[in-house]
């Protein structure tokens, strides 16, 4: 169990990070040059980390599967990024941001990490502004804020509906500057396929060059995984097409623990599914809930007429509309956290009040357009409205948008300690692919914050505490047997994939698996369903390895092979997600077990038995993994039942 030591520094919560920084070990400038750091992934977390480490003088190698770091999935984030700056003078503070984040995560996150996140949040905004990130401005030239789901203060900074894009471009440009300076070497169109351990420490990675299929070996004194979330396991999700869980899964198989895999977030405001050919779901920023009101008809016959197209939304009288979030949660109304909003939408649709295909609710701007004028709405959300119109072919200024929940974010991921180090020495994990800061539920605008906090302000310090002891370790040749063996295994795996020559396309299997994952391990879960899922996914794994069809060649650009490898991993991740959900006999945040709910249908936690991080240890494919528990202790906060009604 010693491997699961969270290594939280001593002392009062508010002083832990300051004390840590004052006493951690540093690497002197002359020695930094001698140390190589591999960063896998160049989204917000990876790019900001690689740039910052390069600035410090380390030798950095940065990898991503896209042709450019600027295309990482982070680019798609729309709504905004939180920071406890209290610029609007509405009473925000580090403590309040920490409090909201812990509560929003249903008391399943590690207190010390979350406090630190809140603490550095302000620096992120300073950093990004200095880089030229065009955050929205007031007429006086100062920064503008808005509020976001789950918060009663306006602490969200944004750049039109393109916040993720602008933040990523900021981190990307810092990275490009380091590439120009020669401290960072960039490896785009390269996918990491395995991590290499020597004497129990992470010492490098094996990659596949996606252009020519070449397998390559790379040494590093430390390896940082920043590869994002595994939500695309569900096939339909808001994640980019190439998003994957492969790097996370490979390091899990090498001994890193995988924490809280069952905690995935469902986002309430996505464009609903409209056809069987569909490849992904498009998110509509949650900021829309600031000015849009969510409703379905009160009467079933109206819902039926709307579905049949014999009535239009404007034909439903005000009195016949059920603004169910405002009705059920008067204090937060349309701004309740995502899990609450998502389940409420599902509940209404399951009860027969859904519109569109039946799996949709309205998000209506009529009233705010009347109150504020069309131009204000246009200024705030113009590009989102345009995007909606392009996809759905309907004008949201005139008819309400239709939305439905979709898989969006993974709170679970690689287990890390306070230093963001995994249970493998020298292997670090940052951003969405680690488990650390969001508990069972992620509040809006907090993932961007975490990615950049990890990359700019936390990892560059904490990794030095590890590397200080490595300055005498010379660079190792990649002819080391550990590299040879890892490469051999990867070659074997790719050969095996190419030789299946089955009958079903990879997408076909993925779609089938994703649907089952959504049904059994999606918005609500039951013991029966999860037990079934564990069995079914094991069979699907075999089906995949017996019957997948991958065309083309191994030694060329082969997108089917890339997909196949990812889908093989997704199926195994799905199995672990189901196991984890089965084990957690309570409802919390994004994890809803139907057996554990209050009479009003709200999630019902079991703090006595489940106030822990569930970290899984791999024991071989097909064998039961072992669950380790990291108890969560809240010294500074009274654990309460989440309540968004009052």
């Amino acid at each position, binding site marked *: 169990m010693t491997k699961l030591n969270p290594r939280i520094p001593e002392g009062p919560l508010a002083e832990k990070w300051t004390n840590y920084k004052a006493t951690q070990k540093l690497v002197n400038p002359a020695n930094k040059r001698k140390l190589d750091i591999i960063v896998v992934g160049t989204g917000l977390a990876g790019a900001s980390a690689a740039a910052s480490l390069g600035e410090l003088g380390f030798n950095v190698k940065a990898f991503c599967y896209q042709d450019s770091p600027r295309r990482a999935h982070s680019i798609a984030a729309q709504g905004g990024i939180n920071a406890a700056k209290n610029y609007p003078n509405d009473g925000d503070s580090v403590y309040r941001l920490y409090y909201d984040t812990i509560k929003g995560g249903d008391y399943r996150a590690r207190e010390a990490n979350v406090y630190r996140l809140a603490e550095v949040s302000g620096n992120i905004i300073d950093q990004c502004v200095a880089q030229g990130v065009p955050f929205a401005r007031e007429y006086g030239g100062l920064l503008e804020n808005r509020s976001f789901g789950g918060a009663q203060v306006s602490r969200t900074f944004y750049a039109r509906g393109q916040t993720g894009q*602008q933040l990523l471009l900021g981190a990307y440009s810092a990275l490009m500057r380091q590439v120009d300076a020669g401290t960072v070497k960039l490896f785009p169109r390269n996918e990491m396929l395995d991590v290499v351990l020597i004497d129990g420490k992470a010492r490098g990675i094996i990659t596949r060059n996606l252009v020519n299929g070449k397998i390559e070996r790379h040494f590093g004194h430390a390896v940082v995984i920043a590869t994002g979330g595994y939500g695309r396991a569900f096939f339909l999700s808001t994640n980019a097409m190439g998003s994957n869980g492969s790097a996370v899964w490979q390091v899990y198989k090498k001994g890193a623990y995988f924490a809280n895999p069952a905690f995935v977030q469902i986002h309430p405001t996505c464009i609903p599914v409209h056809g069987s*050919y569909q*490849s992904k779901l498009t998110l509509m920023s949650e900021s829309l809930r600031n000015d849009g009101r969510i409703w379905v008809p009160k009467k079933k016959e109206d819902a039926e007429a709307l579905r049949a197209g014999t009535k239009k939304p404007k034909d439903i009288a005000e009195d016949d509309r059920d603004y169910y979030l405002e009705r059920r949660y008067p204090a937060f109304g349309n701004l309740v956290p995502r899990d609450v909003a998502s389940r409420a939408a599902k509940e209404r649709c399951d009860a027969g009040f859904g519109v569109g295909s039946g799996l949709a609710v309205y998000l209506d701007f009529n009233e705010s357009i009347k109150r504020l004028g069309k131009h204000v709405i246009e200024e705030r959300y113009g590009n989102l409205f345009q995007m909606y119109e392009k996809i759905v072919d309907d004008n949201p200024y005139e008819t309400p948008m239709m939305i439905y929940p979709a898989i969006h974010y993974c709170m679970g991921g690689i287990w890390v300690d306070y230093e963001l180090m995994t249970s493998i020495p020298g292997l670090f994990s940052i951003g969405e692919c680690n488990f650390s800061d969001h508990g069972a539920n992620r509040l809006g605008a907090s993932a961007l914050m975490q990615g950049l906090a990890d990359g700019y302000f936390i990892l560059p310090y904490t990794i030095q505490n590890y590397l200080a002891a490595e300055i005498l370790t010379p660079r190792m040749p990649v002819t080391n047997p550990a590299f040879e063996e890892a490469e051999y295994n990867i070659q074997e795996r790719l050969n095996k994939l190419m030789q299946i020559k089955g009958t079903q396309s990879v997408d076909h299997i993925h779609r089938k698996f994703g649907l089952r994952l959504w049904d059994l391990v999606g918005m609500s879960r039951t013991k029966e369903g999860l037990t079934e899922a564990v069995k079914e996914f094991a069979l699907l794994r075999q089906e995949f390895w017996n019957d997948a069809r991958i065309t083309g060649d191994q030694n060329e650009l082969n997108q089917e092979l890339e997909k196949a490898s990812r889908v093989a991993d997704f199926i195994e991740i799905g199995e672990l997600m189901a196991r984890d959900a089965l084990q957690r006999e309570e409802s919390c945040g994004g994890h809803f077990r139907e057996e554990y709910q209050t009479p009003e249908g709200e999630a019902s936690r079991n703090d006595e038995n489940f106030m822990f991080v569930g970290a899984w240890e791999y024991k071989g494919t097909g064998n039961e993994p072992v669950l380790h528990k990291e108890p969560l202790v809240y010294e500074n906060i009274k654990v309460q039942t989440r309540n968004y009604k009052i």
Partner: protein
Amino acid sequence: MDFTLKIWRQENSTAKGRFETYKVAEISPDCSFLEMLDILNQDLINKIEKPVCFDHDCREGICGACGLYINGRPHGPDSAVTTCQLHMRKFKDKDTIVIEPWRAKPFPIIKDLIVDRSALDKIIQAGGYISVNTGGVPDANTIPVPRQNYETAMDAASCIACGACVAACKNASAMLFVAAKVSQFAVLPQGQVEAKERAIRMVAKMDELGFGNCTNTGSCEAECPKSISLSHIARLNREYLHAKLT
């Protein structure tokens, strides 16, 4: 809807390319262009043939990865959208659609419809940033930015580096792309210190990488999915001249 597709196929950067003709049937008008290609690819896989390779990732019009030359236009017939946001309802039933990769010397073909756009990263490496290290920066609100400048910076910053401007330009100029970045920083106080060097270095890099000159034809603006305005090119020219003269 049914379509006949004429698609550029090319095994790798050195192989000779050719057009192949394919048919797709019963495509929903709500299908995106890339989903239509997915359907074609599933057919090809069923026939144990190699699917058509194309770049894409977000499928939300923001990552800039997708880019196809469709019936002679970058990103196809709709205005102000990327290929992933183009829908089949913009075509007529039974249309023949010609699909090619971006064609420009600085964008060599990698395979089928995929080209190498790393030249755009190299241009950014030549100064498309503000030189600040992590930490030690002033509080964000000590750098006020007039609202109008923020709007202009944001307009310019929306460029997704798709390369459609290059593909659309008869000279394969990357001027709109470069102008967008230079312009973003030119109107912000943070960008002033390095303004001259930035303009000179980025333009020099663009020339060095084989992009052509801008002759103010304007096809870049017309085909840009993010409606980046030519006025940024005017600003770049001013910045560049100013930098050269002072």
